[in-house]
């Protein structure tokens, strides 16, 4: 052993292990974060491929490419893969990479569990996707898998679907515990809760939501499992069960779930807009309180997905009012972002472009959400393409653009190189145009009366469907460009400074780019 005492940082101690074991056995938050992000992007492409099948079938009226049975499997798998495979893992990946760097921690608090929660995911999705090749096909009952369509009438592969959901749930819960343990225990000295970057705040709140609702999802699929395989009748009316109970339990998970998919994006955008406005975030404290309020309210609004199932008028009114109330803290966030930009010194690099598009388009999705909250009007909107338009406006420019913005913002820190700005701008504009072309006409289709989850439609819906499909193909193809940009950036280019963005703030910019394998082994002190 060397007699020289290792008095400088331990960062040079050991780098990553070599070969495949680096990835299989790693407990390093950066490696695990990278794996989550790569996994998420491949699921995004897979879910996107399913979406392309859907849009291709809907290009013309009539049945051309797929049969209705397969179409239903495509919509279901598209929804499941996007929600559980693309969006949620992407945010966990960002959390892994950035939370330790942002709070000055050496790693996540529970590194081995971190490894496990990642590797469960590919297993879960292998099972889920393999159901497509089983006899009777994969899940075909929508990502909401309402009973009894998914129980008594489900395909034989449903039990595998349930198993896959269980594994994903375990992975998410472990990821959430890890985030909470890290944020509450490993903050650098001086970093009080109210000094934490907003991305850390929103993830902390998201993690509590996950821990609260993933067990509910596990519960509902377990009840399905019992109904299918062990002769119970939780949801089977002919055995004295209650199909509506399914929906209550599902949406008690489902509504907080939609906030799980958006709160981390809120946090990321709250980092990015101040950076490129060169001005502090407006209303930091109110941002934190608004996020908390949204999270709490999200437990009280689940039945707004069930306005047509026949709940009593008093219940209907309660859920309508509660849902309308959520618009208030959400509005506060939007106003704060705009106030941050107001009288700043703005520049428009790719992260900022995606962040601005996020604010505008997410707000449009929020507006249609407010319309859907008006229960009598929801009787007309419910289960039409208006709803499909609504949730894609909050998910695609919301969650997905938030993820793109984060990726461009932090890529220099991850790779040590600047990405190609003009390609990134092209990626932005083509995604922006494609996405609006794909999803805006869906509002019209829904209002004109086109139900969702149908492989064929009446002729008055033909034109907007064609436009929507063209936009979808454009959006889909553009994502290949993102892959190229990231690969190019990882392989070299202009070296990135420790702080490549003039207006950026936070501990992550105090370490070199690329971030060394081990960072903050001695905690920094936050004044």
């Amino acid at each position: 052993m060397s007699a020289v005492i290792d008095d400088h940082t331990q960062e040079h101690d050991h780098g990553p292990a070599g070969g495949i074991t680096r990835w299989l056995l790693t407990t390093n938050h950066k490696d695990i974060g990278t794996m989550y992000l790569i996994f998420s992007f491949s699921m995004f492409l897979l879910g996107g491929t399913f979406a392309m099948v859907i849009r291709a079938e809907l290009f013309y009226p009539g049945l051309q490419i797929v049969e209705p049975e397969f179409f239903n499997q495509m919509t279901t798998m598209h929804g499941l893969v996007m929600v559980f495979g693309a969006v949620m893992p992407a945010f966990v990946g960002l959390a892994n990479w950035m939370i330790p760097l942002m709070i000055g921690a050496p790693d996540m608090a529970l590194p081995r569990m971190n490894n496990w929660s990642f590797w469960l995911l590919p297993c879960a999705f292998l099972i889920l996707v393999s159901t497509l090749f089983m006899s009777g096909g994969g899940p075909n009952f929508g990502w909401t898998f309402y009973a009894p369509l998914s129980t008594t009438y489900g395909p034989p592969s449903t039990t595998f679907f349930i198993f896959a959901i269980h594994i994903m749930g375990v992975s998410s819960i472990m990821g959430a515990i890890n985030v909470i343990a890290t944020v509450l225990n490993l903050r650098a000295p001086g970093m009080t809760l109210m000094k934490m970057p907003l991305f850390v705040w929103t993830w902390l709140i998201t993690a509590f939501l996950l821990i609260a609702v993933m067990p509910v999802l596990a519960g509902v699929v377990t009840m399905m499992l019992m109904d299918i395989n062990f002769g119970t009748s939780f949801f089977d009316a002919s055995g004295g069960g209650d199909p509506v109970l399914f929906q209550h339990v599902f949406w008690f998970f489902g509504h907080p779930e939609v906030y799980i998919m958006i709160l981390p994006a809120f946090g990321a955008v709250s980092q990015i807009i101040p950076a490129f406005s060169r001005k502090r975030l407006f209303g930091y404290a109110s941002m934190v309180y608004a996020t908390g309020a949204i999270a709490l309210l999200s437990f009280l609004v689940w039945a707004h997905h069930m306005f047509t199932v026949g709940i009593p008028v008093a219940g209907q009114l309660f859920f309508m009012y509660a849902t309308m109330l959520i618009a208030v803290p959400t509005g506060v966030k939007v106003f704060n972002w705009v106030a941050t930009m107001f009288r700043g010194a703005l520049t428009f690099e790719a992260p900022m472009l995606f962040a601005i598009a996020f604010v505008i388009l997410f707000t449009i999705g929020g507006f249609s959400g407010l319309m859907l909250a008006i229960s009598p009007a929801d009787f007309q909107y419910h289960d039409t393409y208006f709803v499909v338009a609504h949730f894609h406006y909050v998910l695609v420019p919301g969650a997905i653009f938030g993820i793109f913005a984060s990726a461009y913002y932090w890529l220099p820190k991850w790779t040590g190189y600047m990405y190609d700005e003009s390609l990134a701008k092209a990626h932005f504009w083509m995604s922006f145009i494609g996405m609006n072309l794909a999803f805006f006409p869906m509002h019209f289709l829904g209002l004109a009366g086109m139900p969702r989850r149908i492989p064929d439609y009446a002729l008055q819906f033909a034109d907007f469907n064609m436009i929507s499909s063209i936009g979808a193909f454009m959006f889909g193809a553009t994502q290949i460009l993102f892959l190229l940009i990231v690969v190019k950036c990882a392989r070299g280019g202009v070296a990135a400074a420790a702080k490549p963005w003039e207006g950026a703030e936070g501990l992550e910019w105090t370490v070199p780019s690329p971030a060394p394998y081990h960072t903050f082994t001695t905690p920094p002190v936050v004044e």
Partner: protein
Amino acid sequence: MGVHAKQAGAVAAGLTIPTLVLADWGINMPAGVTATSNDIYGLHMTILWICIAIGAVVFGVMFWSIFAHRKSKGHKPAHFHEHPLVEVVWTVIPLLILVIMAIPATATLVDMYDTTESDIDIKVTGYQWKWHYDYIDEEFGFFSALTTPRDQIYNRTAKGEHYLLEVDNEMVIPVGKKVRLLLTANDVIHSWWVPEFGVKKDAIPGFINEAWTRVDVPGVYRGQCTELCGKDHAFMPIVVRAVPEAEYLAWVDEQKAAAETERELTQKDWTMAELMERGEGVYARACAACHQADGSGLPPAFPALKASALVTGPADGHLEVVVNGVSGTAMQAFGGQLSEADLAAVITYERNAWGNNTGDMVTPKQVFDFKNQ
């Protein structure tokens, strides 16, 4: 609407391209023909304009910053980062707007839930994939299923004007009367929606939901099932014909007489040829969606009937499956859905079609005895 479709023979699948010019570019919710649908339309437009107004202000400020406060124009960032008064104002104002919005919404909702004092009650039952309308007071009922030919769906012929929105038996209601709907389902959840009435309600097995409508303008109104209910969810439309009361009463008499004739068919002496002919029609209507027109089914979900051991075996086993269904599967009990004559015909047909040449004939009387044994 008047949409024509033309053949595009080049594409192997035989795509039909609807002509762009003729199609309907409807972009908004229809105001509809009932007081409820008009109320809903009013709420929809109010909230839409509120959103547009808020959007104009928020995006206005944002675009102003984007244009005026650029670094490239040499704009220097200000230093403010909070302002309690502004923050309170933009919390309270949206709250007030929402309260104002909630008032008419509540009134409309309470009205929609008032199903009392109806003039006519119709029980609507969702089946995979058709609707059944039961005129409870008049003691008759019938199924209503899609009539669009498969050739149109598979683009082998031009699509008709009411493509996918046409049925064999329309639901008929009188104008100006309060019609109460009692909705339920036989298998999975369906949802009954006619946009122009502003009525959408789920039909759930084991539950009876209520909805009501009063249509003032005679006409034909079309809607669709709006809850995913399996493979043919897209193919179970709803067509309601609203007619003046006299016409309605005449129609009711006709229906009652037809129901009576149907009952007499059980007593009639049938020949094999008659049963086969009737059976082919019943099969196409009630069974082909799952078991396919050529009896080959869609295994493993829907078994083939062609060369099936059960179908070519003893008639009692066959009767058992068709009359009582197979519980826990998509094979429903058709005993209550089809008349004895139809059951006898379809069973006879299955036993002798597609090379199942058993030579057996099952008569309506046999079916009657089987049901009452």
